[in-house]
């Protein structure tokens, strides 16, 4: 039974790999564009099917199974292995990954219909590679494979953000994403190396057995888990390494949906969930995780409130939700974080794809160019609102229970500070998401004097939006290839929400004994703040009962700070441009002009000494005779003395 699950998971893993190889190596086929795309989709569908079957075979209670092969032999043993580790968590995650990957690939056919064939082929090559890497990460039985896939998804992220590589901003964002996550990966790498030294293995199963039997030395473990957390911090965009995620929106929107919302960015959360038994040994690190998570959630939520780019709002909301998940893990209930990861994966992908449909229609990311779209693209609007309600944590929708669980866990763990922060975030989340909903789909933008968007073009555009005067837009619901994924995700989101709100009332995954004794007031108050947020957004942006400008004025300093992204990007830019590049220039200069300079000085001295010595060579035979005479004299003198 379980071996079946492992075999199916392996099959699921290999399908995108084959697709990648086919597309990557057979360049003429890749350049055909659409056929290549459909091939990739076909393999993704196969992977999804296999994943679902694997998940069913494994079930929730099935014994974890490993299929591993020797990868790095050393001293007659396997220093490292590769393979798949199949258990409830990994199969569920696998289903999510394959599902979103499949839907996004399908969606991209429509979204990228204008791209040239070669670019489309390239896009699907990257997509296949990403699917493979992400699944490898999910299924990895050891830290090494996990790290390898971790890096590979980072690579795919880099490549896909830079898909429109001719755009300087995209090129910038791509390397920024790579470097920032790589900085975290440095920590992860160190952590893995240290852990290997401590445990003698990379294998998760073996290591877990060691932890449970108490064989793993705890001394120094805090450093290790903190290093591992650094990796998660980079990948899952935790403060202060969150700066790359908003910029990553330069990539195509389906990419944002897949990589920067549903799957890759959650890898950090998944990693911490996967190794929660290890982190449990180091509560001090968990405390850091919780606080940073909660802080990140709040920071990102504040930032999301001032964005005018629809994708950036979603990006910050992703950061914020990742903070939520991290807080749950920090509170010791990683299952809640994982659960939120799953639901978030679904509804955030929905939101991004919905936003993609809007962008595709309007031809712009800018909220001020949208408005009243609900009439023109009703299906999109409906689905987007489902996603928004899920995100806001309204009962009957996807995010409700997972969010409750997190809040409950944090409260139960006695983390009052983070709890307050998270409640605040819940309010802000509802507010900024409904700000988007109202601005984009209903009322239209605030016509005047919002400090940041005062340009005449914007005003004109917003004033004229009713008459379809602006742009080349075709503002209607997208074609079927795009709508189908949207509906799938929307219904799934709704189904999950209804199931868990009305039927299950509990976590589907993880240890059942982790029953959270959440206080009774929690649910009403959480829903209450969310509703308050929605109300505020409605009053401000729909009814215009509250002037947006004066609302903004109330938070003057915070607002201007948020518009400057709290100067975090500036600090990074400064560190990079001035400190790092400056230092490197210094080193380069020292190498050329001091280290090498010294060598040249030695060389120059040799040349000069040669020139001086050459003076003796007058070229006149007489002088040489004189030299011979002097030499003879010295010889005779020496003989006299030596022989005396």
């Amino acid at each position, binding site marked *: 039974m379980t071996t079946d699950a492992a075999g199916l998971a392996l099959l699921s893993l290999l399908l995108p790999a084959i697709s990648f190889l086919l597309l990557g190596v057979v360049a003429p086929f890749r350049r055909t564009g659409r056929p290549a795309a459909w091939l990739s989709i076909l393999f993704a569908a196969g992977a999804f099917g296999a994943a679902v079957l694997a998940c069913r075979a494994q079930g929730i209670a099935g014994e974890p199974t490993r299929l591993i092969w020797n990868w790095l032999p050393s001293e007659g043993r396997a220093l490292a292995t590769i393979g798949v580790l199949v258990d409830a968590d990994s199969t569920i995650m696998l289903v999510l990954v394959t599902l979103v990957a499949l839907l996004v690939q399908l969606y991209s056919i429509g979204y990228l219909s204008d791209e040239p064939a070669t670019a489309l082929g390239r896009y699907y090559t990257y997509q296949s590679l990403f699917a493979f890497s992400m699944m490898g990460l999910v299924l990895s039985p050891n830290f090494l494979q996990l790290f390898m896939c971790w890096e590979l998804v980072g690579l795919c992220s880099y490549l896909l953000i830079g898909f429109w590589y001719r755009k300087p901003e995209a090129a910038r964002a791509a390397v920024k994403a790579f470097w920032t996550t790589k900085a975290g990966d440095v920590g992860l790498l160190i952590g893995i*190396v240290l852990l290997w030294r401590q445990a003698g293995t990379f294998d998760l199963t073996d290591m877990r057995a060691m932890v449970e039997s108490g064989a793993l030395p705890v001394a120094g473990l805090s450093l290790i888990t903190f290093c591992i957390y650094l990796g998660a911090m980079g990948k899952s965009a935790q403060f202060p390494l969150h700066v790359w995620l908003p910029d990553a929106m330069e990539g195509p929107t389906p990419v944002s949906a897949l990589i920067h919302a549903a799957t890759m960015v959650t890898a950090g959360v998944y990693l911490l969930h996967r190794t929660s038994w290890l982190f449990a040994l180091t509560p001090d690190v968990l405390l850091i995780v919780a606080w940073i998570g909660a802080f990140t959630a709040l920071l990102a939520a504040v930032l999301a409130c001032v964005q005018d780019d629809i994708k950036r709002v979603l990006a910050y909301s992703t950061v914020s939700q990742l903070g939520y998940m991290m807080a749950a893990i920090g509170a010791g209930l990683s299952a809640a974080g994982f659960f939120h990861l799953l639901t978030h994966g679904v509804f955030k992908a929905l939101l991004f794809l919905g936003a993609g449909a809007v962008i595709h229609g309007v031809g712009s990311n800018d909220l001020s160019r949208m408005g009243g779209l609900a009439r023109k693209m009703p299906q999109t609007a409906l689905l987007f609102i489902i996603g928004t309600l899920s995100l806001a944590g309204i009962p009957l929708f996807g995010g409700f229970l997972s969010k409750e669980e997190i809040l409950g866990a944090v409260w139960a763990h006695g983390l009052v500070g983070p709890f307050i922060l998270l409640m605040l975030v819940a309010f802000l989340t509802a507010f900024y998401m409904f700000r988007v909903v109202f601005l984009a789909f209903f009322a239209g933008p605030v016509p005047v004097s919002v400090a940041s968007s005062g340009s005449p073009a914007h005003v004109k555009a917003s004033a004229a939006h009713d008459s379809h005067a602006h742009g080349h837009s075709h503002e209607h619901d997208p074609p079927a290839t795009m709508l189908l994924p949207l509906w799938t995700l929307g219904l799934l989101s709704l189904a999950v929400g209804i199931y868990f709100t009305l039927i299950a009332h509990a976590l589907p995954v993880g240890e059942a004994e982790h029953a959270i004794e959440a206080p009774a007031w929690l649910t009403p108050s959480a829903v209450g703040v969310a509703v308050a947020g929605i109300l505020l957004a409605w009053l401000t942006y729909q009814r215009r009962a509250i002037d947006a400008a004066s609302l903004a004025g109330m938070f003057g300093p915070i607002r201007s700070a948020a518009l400057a992204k709290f100067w975090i990007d500036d600090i990074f830019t400064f560190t990079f441009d001035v400190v790092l590049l400056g230092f490197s220039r210094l080193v380069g200069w020292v190498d050329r002009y001091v280290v090498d*300079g010294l060598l040249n*000085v030695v060389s120059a001295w040799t040349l*000069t000494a040669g020139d001086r010595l050459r003076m003796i060579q007058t070229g006149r035979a007489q002088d040489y005779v004189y030299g011979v005479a002097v030499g003879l004299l010295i010889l005779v003198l020496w003989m006299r003395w030596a022989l005396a």
Partner: protein
Amino acid sequence: MTGFPVLSVMTWAPFVAALIVMFFARHKPLLVRWVSLAGATVSLVASLWVYWEYDQAVAGFQFHETLSLVPQLGISYLLAVDGISVLMCVLTSIIIFAGVFASWTVKERGQEFYALLLLLVTGVYGVFVSLDLFVFFLFYEIAVLPMYLLIGIWGSSGYVQPQGIFGWAFGRTGVGSKEYAAMKLTLYLLFGSAFILVGILALYVAGGSRTFSFLDFQAMTFDPTLQSWVFLAFYVGFGILAGIWPLHTWSPDGHASAPTAVSMLHAGVLMKLGAYGVVRLGMGLLPDGTHQWAWLVGGIACVNIVYGALSAMAQKDLKYVIAYSSVSHMGVVMLGAATLTVAGLNGSVFQMFAHGIMTGLFFALVGLIYEKTHSRAIFTMGGFGTMMPGIATAFTIGGLSSLGLPATAGFVAEFLTFLGAWSSDHRWWLFPGVVGAFLTSIYVLRVVRQIFWGTKSEDPHFQNLPDAVGTEWVALGILVFVLVLFGVAPWIAIAPVDTATVPLLMRLAGR
């Protein structure tokens, strides 16, 4: 034991090809290339055959060939390979095979160019397979000397603005010209080989002046004081070739001035000779010396890694970036060796291989880019990705390997080295190593972004540039394939290497 002298065939095939090229191919450029290719192919086949037939269960030195040369002095022609040299021979074969293709377009004096190139390769093979230290040294010199002509004649010159307190010396020595680079490289390496010769002779004398055989020396135990300074002599001598700081400055100038195939061979293979020498002679013969100086080797290696990466970041010339990245990566090689752990040493040898391939790829690419754009100034380029997607892809893969991305050979090497570093007596070595990998990601991707991404350069010279064509693809394809293959399936390299490193380290531990 006896039988077909495959190692000799592998070693001398390029030499024979060089002779044929020199004497029978005058004014026939295409024949020159085909003969060279044939020579390289014979070596490639022979080295792959050796790899295939190498018995991993038996381990140790295999494929012995013995021929007494000067019995009075104990000099003999003694060839054999172990797991490390097998891999190095394969590396050499791949690089020269690709190098022949990469120099297909050499126009000026092609005949002499190929002859010298092949002569050099014979020297490289000889070093990897010789067990007689005298012959080893002869081959070593053969490998070093043709470089002078290759750079001096076919190289390219640049300009370096004299600055700083030592600026006066720059004009005097002609910094920037290819003649300067060739002379600097040759003098530096010969300076190093003097140390090596002294070390070898010291061992010879201490061993009773009867034999130059590595195997005989291995059976002896030398006085610790002797070991100490002989190890140092080997370290400095070979280390110069391996680009150890601060004796590395020949490398950027030399590699930047050298023609494509020469850079490929030099950075790809010759620098490995240095590291190989330290491992084979230093660690293999002088256990006490190794233990005594491991801290120095590792410490300098850490400087190399970080310093090389930072220097690379500061460069504006594409070739210099690659050359400094070599300095940085050779630091990883030396670091792995200095850890004196199985993982570290495996990583070191693997990095020799990985870096050889990746830097060969890089120099081949830089050569192509230069050929098409006639420029190496990074910051004047931009947006080439549209015009040369193939080159861009290969460059990106090379860069990813360089920064240690998994599924490329660079990752396995660096990771093993890091494991070794943390297991060694000097744990802090891990951190410079990891930081170096991070810095590498910065300068490599910065270069990729500048050259291939972004808006297209307005420069009229940079319009309608062609992508790689014909033979160029062969060189790129081989190198990319090997790079990825060894990253995905590292066991094919690690398994034989392990058979050599484990006994070596056991000998070291049991001194």
